[in-house]
């Protein structure tokens, strides 16, 4: 199953890595080639356009911090000429780079120094969405429902008046999962899986406690008009239309 899945996602998928560091390009090529991707390389804008002209490319990994024609300009020009998904590599913690990068049309971003597995996961995500033929390839940056906006990057809620309501990590992940699957029942186990996240450690908050906290934060009175509905002996669902915002 695993091998089949890998075949499905990476067979014939071509990634173009645009980075000014030759060694990093080389390492990325090795890393992705070992995982059955076809990897093309470019050291900057000129080579990138050259590669794009000669090959069909499924995804561009673009370093934002490059000398010469910078990543942002390349990103904008690329987006203007093609629908090829772009994964942007940014400086860590530089909010401006991230925001501008996303505005320039990048589908997703990752800080340097990234963990290779994280990069692989993001690449696969973008490719899956592209292959599903979604009109909007881009990773949703915000989910909007019932007067609330769940900001995925900032990991907080914004109410209808624009006031930011922060969420603990576990509650954020639960709400994100619920909002990504609106009107679908999610079991406590499914929710617990995401709630504990990658952080190891004793997770002593039960899902029920977290759901009740979330309801309080969402001013959810429960009952028939509840936003997060309890489905007896099954789990919970978010009873609202959810709009994805890039």
């Amino acid at each position, binding site marked *: 199953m695993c091998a089949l899945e890998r075949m499905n996602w990476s067979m014939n998928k071509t990634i173009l890595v645009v980075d000014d*560091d030759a*060694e*990093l390009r080389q*390492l*990325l090529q*090795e*890393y992705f080639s070992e995982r059955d991707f076809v990897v093309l390389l470019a050291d900057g804008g000129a080579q990138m356009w050259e590669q794009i002209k000669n090959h069909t490319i499924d995804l561009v990994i673009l370093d934002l*911090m490059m000398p010469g024609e910078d990543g942002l300009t390349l990103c904008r020009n690329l987006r203007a000429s093609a629908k090829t998904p772009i994964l942007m590599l940014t*400086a*860590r*913690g*530089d*909010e*401006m*780079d991230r*925001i501008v990068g996303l505005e320039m049309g990048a589908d997703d971003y990752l800080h*340097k*120094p*990234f*963990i*290779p597995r994280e990069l692989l996961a993001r690449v696969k995500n973008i490719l899956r969405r592209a292959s599903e033929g979604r009109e909007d390839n881009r990773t949703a940056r915000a989910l909007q429902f019932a007067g609330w906006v769940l900001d995925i990057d*900032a990991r*907080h809620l*914004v*109410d209808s*008046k*624009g*006031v*930011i*309501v*922060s*969420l*603990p*990590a*576990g*509650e954020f992940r639960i709400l994100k999962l619920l909002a990504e699957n609106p009107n679908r029942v999610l079991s406590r186990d499914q929710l617990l899986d995401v709630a504990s996240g990658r*952080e190891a*450690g*004793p*997770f002593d*908050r039960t899902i029920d406690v977290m759901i009740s*906290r979330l309801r309080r*934060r969402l001013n959810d009175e429960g009952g028939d008009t509840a936003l997060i509905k309890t489905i007896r002996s099954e789990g919970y669902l978010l009873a609202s239309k959810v709009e994805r915002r890039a």
Partner: protein
Amino acid sequence: MRIMPRTLFGQIMLALCAGLLAAQAAGIWLTLNDRARFGEGLLGSFAAQRIAGVISILDDLEPAERHRLIHALNVPPTHISLDEPWETPAEPVGEDAKSFIARVEQELERPAVIQVLSIKRAEPRRRDNAGAALPRPPETSAPGKAANADSAVRATANPAAESERRSNRRARPNRVLFVEGQARLTDGTIVTFRHSLPEAGLEGPLRLLGSLAILGISVALLSAWAVRRLTLPLASLADAATGLARNLDHPPLPENGPLEVAKAARAFNAMQDDIKRYLETRAQALAAVSHDLRLPITRLRLRIERIAEGELKSKMESDLSEMDEMIGNTLEFLRAGANGEKASRVDLNALIESVTEDMITVGAQITLHCDAVQPLPVRPQALRRCLTNLLDNARRYGGGDIDISISERPDKVEIRIEDRGPGIPESDLERVFEPYVRMESSRAKHTGGSGLGLAIARAIARAHGGDVKLALRSGGGIAAILTLSRNVVPA
């Protein structure tokens, strides 16, 4: 009580006012003294002249005519009457009386039978009594022993004494204020006279004092304005110097005012620019190193993907993560609060609850005592980081229970994060905010931490127009106090 004011303004004003007061007082004293001497001198001569004139006129007249004329002669400041009996002086005749009699005799150009019942001379310290009517000495009904009634004149003083008195009189002005006396005319009629300085004499000094007071007050007010103008730039210079440590981007001081002040302001602005440039250069160097380290770390992370899964690989991964975190912290410290994040209105209660909840998840014991607080415009991610760092610090070094409280004031919000740990010496409460400073004794070595947590927290708070301070908590432990200004919207 402090007599010397501490402010420059106060000291200059004190010196100016004291000098002004002394000069005014000396001026007033001199003027009044001169006036008094002049007036009294006039009065003394005038009194003798007038009384001598009255005596000589009355002497020449028939008794019947005297009573008619007495009305004409009886004008202030001299009161004349013919109806009083000869009195015996209550006190022995003094030097003043003798000299007055001599003066009258001089005017009459002959000796006369005159006695002085009361005489008041000006004394410098009694000037305020000048011209005031003095109480009349008690009248005695017993007639004075009449000196030779038939004799036309009777000298009351021998010639030698008279010459001495003359010289005396020249040496000191004849400052008679009030004199009461009697003279016997050639036919034996008794003339009683009282002469006093008119009361109007007081008006002069009052007017003088008034004009001097107006002058004094206007000079004092003008000086106050001028001195305030001089010291104000100094005060703003001091404010700017105080604020420099907190905000290097403080707008430059206005380079105006007096030359010296403008020069100081220019020097200060130049210093601010220099410090700013210096710090920017250092920050850029540190940021550049941190940025550049990320490439090798990225490469290393890709390289260890080739190592077989196992202890070696996982240890290398955690080393790399630690390096990554150190770099991240350094960069975060360098750009604290200025990473491009926008300020929005944030529900502080929800923020604190979220951070608390996250901390409880990793094993902290926290009790919240929070009042509901109005949303505040802050950078949510930065402030979350700030609170996380403070809580993390309390958890690492405080051990045990942590108490968090939030209280709202009209102009600020105060968040207290208190632990019951072993604490640190009071002298180190500020030092721990310095980047990369860690307390030697503590379990810091075991618990890790970048040494930047508090520095980042403070930098973020200051970027929000607030601050973070540590204080010893009563009953043991440390209180971290985060204040956020309501009036400052983070730039």
